[in-house]
C-alpha cells in the first residue's frame, strides 16, 4: 500500500477546508492566501510523494545488497560554513559574499569527490 503521501495530503486538505471556512467570516485576503497556499503546497507534496513512493511493505529485490553509508563528510561542513558566510555577507559586504561563494564552490567539488568515492567503494564491494 502506498499511504505515506496521504499524511501531507490529508493535512493540506484540512488547511484548505479551513481556508474555505474563513471565507464565511469576511476574510482578510492575506489570511486566505497563506492558509490556502500552505494547504495547496501540502496537497502537492503529498501527491508527489504518492507518485514517487516505492513499495516499502514488501521486501525489495535489492534489500540484501549492502548500501554504503557516508560516514564522514567534511565537504558538507565546509558547505554549511560557505552558506553562513555568504548570507552574513549581506551585512559585512561583497568581500564576504565572495569568500562565502568560493567556499561553497570548494565544498561542492568536495561533495562530488565524496560521491564518486562512495560509488567506487560500492562497486568494489
Amino acid at each position, binding site marked *: *500500500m502506498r*499511504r*505515506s*503521501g*496521504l*499524511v*501531507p495530503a*490529508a*493535512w493540506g486538505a*484540512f*488547511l484548505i477546508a*479551513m*481556508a474555505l*471556512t*474563513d471565507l464565511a*467570516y*469576511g*476574510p*482578510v485576503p*492575506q*489570511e486566505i492566501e*497563506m*492558509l490556502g497556499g*500552505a494547504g495547496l*503546497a*501540502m496537497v502537492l*507534496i503529498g501527491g508527489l*510523494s504518492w507518485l514517487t*513512493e516505492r513499495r*516499502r*511493505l*514488501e*521486501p525489495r529485490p535489492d534489500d540484501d545488497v549492502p548500501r554504503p*553509508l*557516508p*560516514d*564522514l*563528510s*567534511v565537504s*558538507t*561542513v565546509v*558547505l*554549511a*560554513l560557505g*552558506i*553562513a558566510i555568504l*548570507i*552574513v555577507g*549581506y*551585512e559585512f559586504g561583497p568581500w564576504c559574499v565572495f569568500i562565502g561563494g568560493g567556499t561553497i564552490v570548494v565544498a561542492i567539488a568536495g*561533495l562530488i569527490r565524496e560521491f564518486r568515492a562512495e560509488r567506487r567503494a560500492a562497486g568494489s564491494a
Partner: protein
Amino acid sequence: MSTPALVVPREQSLGLIGWMASTDHKSLGKRMIGASILFFVVGGIMALIMRAQLGQPDQQIVSPETYNALFTMHGSTMIYLFVVPLALALGVYLVPLQCGAAEIAGPRVALLGFWLYLAGGLILELGWATNGGPGRATWIAVAPLSEMQRTPGSGQDLWILGVIIVSIGQWLSALCIIATAMRKRAPGMTLMRMAPFTWLMVGTTLMMVFAWPVLVVTLALLEWDRKNGGIFFAAGHPAGPIAYQQLFWFYGHPVVYVMFFPFVGCVAEVFSAFSGRRMFGYKFFVFGSVLLFAAGSSMVWGHHLLTSGRVDIKFFSFNTHGLILAAGIEYFDLLGTLWRGRIRFTTAFLFACGFMWQFLIGGLTGIWTAAPTLDYHVNNSYLIVAHFHYTIFAGSLFAAFAGMYYWWPKFFGVLLSERLGKVHFVLLTIGTNLTFAPMIALGQEGMTRRISTYPAANGWGTLNLLESAGAGIIALAILVFLINVWVSHRAPRVVLPNNPWQGNSLEWATTCPPPRHNFDGLPPIRSYAPMMDMREEAEDRGLPVEEVRPELVTEQGAAT
C-alpha cells in the same frame, strides 16, 4: 532493573574531524543536544540577570537598553537555539531507530542542517560583540521597531541573518526526519505501527515544512527593508507592520507547537514504559495530535493579533478554542495509559507527571488569550509571560527531561543517577512554580511585560522577589542535572541490557548505545509496541522477560 557488572573500556574518540563531520544520525543527534544545552545555559544566564534586575523595585543593575537586548536575546536563544533544536535533536536520533532504519534519510543534509544551526546561532550571539549591542526588537523582531530608524546597528542585522541561517538548518533537519518516517521504515512498520513519538515528530516536521520558509522569506524582506528604507513593513505602508505580524505569526504559532509536540511524544513513551501498558487510544492519539492539533495549530496564528482588530477575530478565536478538543484527546489518552498500570516512579516518570499538570496550567491560561474580551485585558501583560513559560518551560522542558532520563542510556550507554535525578526534579518543580505562578497574579494586576523596572508604589516587589528566588532555584536544579551527567559518566561503565526500562518501541531492540548501522536484527513488527509484543510472546512461551532478545522471537518460533 538489574545491570550486569561487566566493565567495558570507553569508546574510542573519533577526533575533531570525526566529531565535526560524522553523518551518523546518532552522533548528530547528540551533538545537537549538546549544542542546544550550551545555548540553554547562555539563555538561562540572561534570564538570571533579568530576574536580578526585577527582584526589587527601582533597580538599575542594567540599563533599559541592555534590558531590551537581554529579553530579546533570552527569548531568541531559548526558542531558536534551544527548544526547537532540542526537539529536532531527539527526532534526528530517535526517529530512524523507532522506524527500524539503518540511517536517517539524507545524512549529509542532516549534517548540513546541524552546522547551519550552529553557525547561525553563533552569528546571532555575535551581536553582543558589536558596538550597538545585539538585536533588541523582541524575539519576533516586531516591525516597525526592528526597522533601521528604531533599531540601528549591526546587532539587529546579525540577529536577522542568524535566525535566517538557523531556520534553514532546522528546516533541513526536519526534512530528513519526515523523509525517514515516510520512506525508511522497516518492513512491517506501517504508518499505524509507528511509535507515538515518531508520529508526533511527523506532526512537528509537517508544521516546519511549510511554516519555516515563511519565516525565512519574511526576515529576508525585513533585512531588505532595513538596508533599503522600509519598503515592505514600515509604518505608513498600506499593509506595513500588520503584514509583518501576519507573516511572522504564520510561522510563530506553529513554532510554539513545534516546541512542545515532540515532548508530548516523550511523555507518551515514558508513560507507556513505566506503566507497563500500551499507549491507550493510540489511533485517537495519532489522529487528534497530528491532524487536529498540529494542523489546527497552523490556522490560529491570528489570535496573536486579536487586539490589532485587523484579523478575523471570530474565526481565529473559534479555531483556537477548537484546539481544546485535540488537547483533551491527548490528555485523555496519556492519562488512560496510566490507568491500572504497574507504575514505576522513576525520575523520567516524575518529570512526565510534572509536564502533565504544569502544561495544563499553561493550556488553561491560554484560554484567556484565545477569548478576545479577556485577551484585551491581559494582552502584553505578565500573564502572557506566565502562559508561555508554563507551556514551554514547565511543560516542554519537563517532558524533555523525562525524555532525557529515559533515553540517556540509549544515547550514551550510561544510566543517570536516579537519586540526583529526583533532587533535580524536586528543585526544578519548586523553582518553576515559584518563578512563573506569581507572574499570573502580576499580569492580572497590570504589570506589563518587557519593562526593565517598576516603582515601589505599585506593590509588585514581593511577588517579583519570589520570582527571582525561584529563578535561582531553577539555576540550582540545572546545576544538579549537569552534576548528574558528570557523575554518571565518570562512574565505571557497565554493559546495559538493550531495554533497561522495558520500553515498548523499536529503539529498545538494539544495544545501548546502538551500533553504527543501528540494528543487528529486528523483531517482527506487528503493532506500535513491538517490544511489548516480544515480551508477551516470551511470557506465553515461559521465557524470563529480562532475557528477551530480538533474535529469540525472530527465528520463526525458535525461541530458546
